[in-house]
């Protein structure tokens, strides 16, 4: 194993500055796959890397590989608009997303990596009487689950976002505010978990695509990859938009469809908006990155596609309302636009589950909104893999809920909004 990575600190920064930043170590090794691991995690996005980290850190399982077909975070993790919140309606969701929120609050120091988690506050706008009823119901449910949530008036919205147009085609009747909500740096989350997991002995193997599963007696024995066969006692599959493709390799189907989801950023401007504003009704949300770009997200394109790009009509549906709500942005240039492939379930809640194959676990179905859950998802998935039984927080998110009818319908809280 390589030399123990040095901790990042103000002193290491100063020391490396003196040597013109030539002395930094690489953040994780680049090993060849071994022939066998106790656990193989398929997918090197935030959720897969977090799973590997918590396996090594909390479950005493360090004989772990993460196999990623491209580069770390190159899937939805590195494409997402980084909104973090835990204001979901149902108790099951509150348990899961708030578990994640608490882990976010300590993540940078836990990982010794600055994930730039910024609890800048998140406004969810209500544009109609019905929207007000929805946030009324959800806000009270959230509050009863012990999660922060406040109702704010249009005037209070204007205090937070002085240039917002309250009385436009999408009039603002009020909003739900989660002050602990905010944003984080997406790449840093993947890299921070990768570095910390590698540090504990996890092998992170990039450019290694899983092309099949080795299954004997309905039990997983390993994965076939573009870099050869890798044996495994247990396999956790965390591949987001490609979950159905891997499920097919293992011989079953999932209650999931994969859609394009797009986002765009503007040219950088001086600080103008210091919170996140979202609106489920008009499929548009906005925040500002530390670089100054406005980060704008859309609703998903409404057809199955793995193309990683959607239609311009969806972008138009997004920037139209943005300009209505914030006329000041009408002459901003957009710099970049891209798409991811999001794995959407009918009830807009994830799958964290055993599968019909023994010792093969899936964690997917996060759809348009799983970044916020990254630490919590990895944490409960690691414990579930270790124990062979689902962690109590993960239990309700079993694939079987679609047969039993016990859906966790977060359509209103999660369908468009992230």
């Amino acid at each position: 194993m390589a030399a123990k990575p040095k901790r990042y600190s103000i002193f290491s920064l100063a020391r490396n500055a003196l040597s013109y930043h030539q002395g930094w170590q690489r953040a994780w090794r680049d090993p060849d796959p071994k022939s066998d691991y106790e656990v193989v995690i398929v997918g090197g996005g935030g959720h897969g890397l977090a799973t590997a980290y918590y396996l090594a850190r909390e479950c005493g399982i360090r004989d772990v590989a993460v196999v990623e077909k491209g580069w770390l975070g190159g899937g939805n993790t590195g494409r997402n608009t980084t909104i973090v919140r835990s204001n979901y309606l149902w108790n099951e969701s509150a348990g899961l997303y708030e578990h994640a929120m608490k882990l976010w609050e300590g993540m940078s120091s836990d990982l010794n990596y600055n994930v730039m988690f910024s609890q800048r506050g998140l406004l969810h706008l209500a544009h109609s009487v019905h929207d007000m009823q929805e946030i009324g119901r959800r806000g009270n449910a959230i509050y009863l689950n012990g999660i922060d949530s406040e109702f704010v008036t249009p005037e209070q919205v204007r205090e937070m976002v002085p240039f917002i147009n309250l009385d436009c085609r999408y009039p603002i009747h009020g909003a739900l505010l989660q002050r602990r909500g905010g944003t984080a740096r997406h790449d840093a989350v993947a890299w921070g978990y990768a570095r910390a997991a590698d540090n504990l002995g996890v092998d992170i193997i990039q450019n290694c695509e899983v092309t099949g599963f080795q299954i004997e007696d309905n039990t997983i024995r390993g994965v076939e990859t573009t870099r050869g066969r890798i044996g495994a006692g247990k396999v956790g599959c965390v591949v987001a938009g490609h979950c159905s493709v891997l499920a097919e390799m293992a011989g079953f189907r999932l209650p999931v469809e994969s859609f394009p989801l797009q986002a765009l950023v503007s040219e950088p401007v001086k600080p103008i908006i210091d919170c996140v504003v979202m609106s489920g009704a008009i499929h548009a949300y906005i925040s500002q990155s530390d670089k100054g770009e406005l980060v704008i997200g859309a609703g998903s394109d409404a057809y199955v596609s793995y193309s990683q790009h959607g239609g311009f009509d969806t972008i138009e549906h997004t920037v139209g309302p943005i300009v209505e709500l914030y006329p000041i942005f009408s002459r901003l240039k957009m710099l970049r636009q891209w798409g991811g492939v999001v794995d959407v379930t009918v009830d807009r809640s994830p799958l964290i589950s055993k599968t019909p194959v023994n010792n093969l676990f899936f964690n997917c179905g996060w759809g348009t909104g799983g970044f916020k859950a990254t630490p919590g998802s990895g944490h409960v998935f690691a414990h579930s893999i270790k124990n062979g039984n689902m962690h109590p927080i993960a239990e309700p998110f079993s694939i079987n809920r679609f047969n039993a009818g016990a859906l966790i319908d977060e359509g209103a809280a999660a369908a468009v909004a992230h």
Partner: protein
Amino acid sequence: MFLIKCPWCGYRDQTEFSAQGEAHIVRPEDPYQLDEEQWGDYLFFRKNPKGIHHERWVHSHGCRRWFNVIRDTATDHIHATYRPDEPIPELSSEETSKPA
């Protein structure tokens, strides 16, 4: 974004249409005979393939008729469209290996 050939109206912009999911899912003859697993499977579980996909579209802002599309979901290339009463067109191997 792409053009879709409505079997009745011809080529139109995709924004005139709406996608309605996997095609050729047949409603069970007698739902009461199904167990939970079969019923859940019928309602919620989908192929969601990366590659050739048979799906239903409706020409919402045109003739408002339903039809089927064979589309490659990796590239969004449309191989064929056909009416509900037509058999599923056979794709030649040349057709399915066509780039987008």
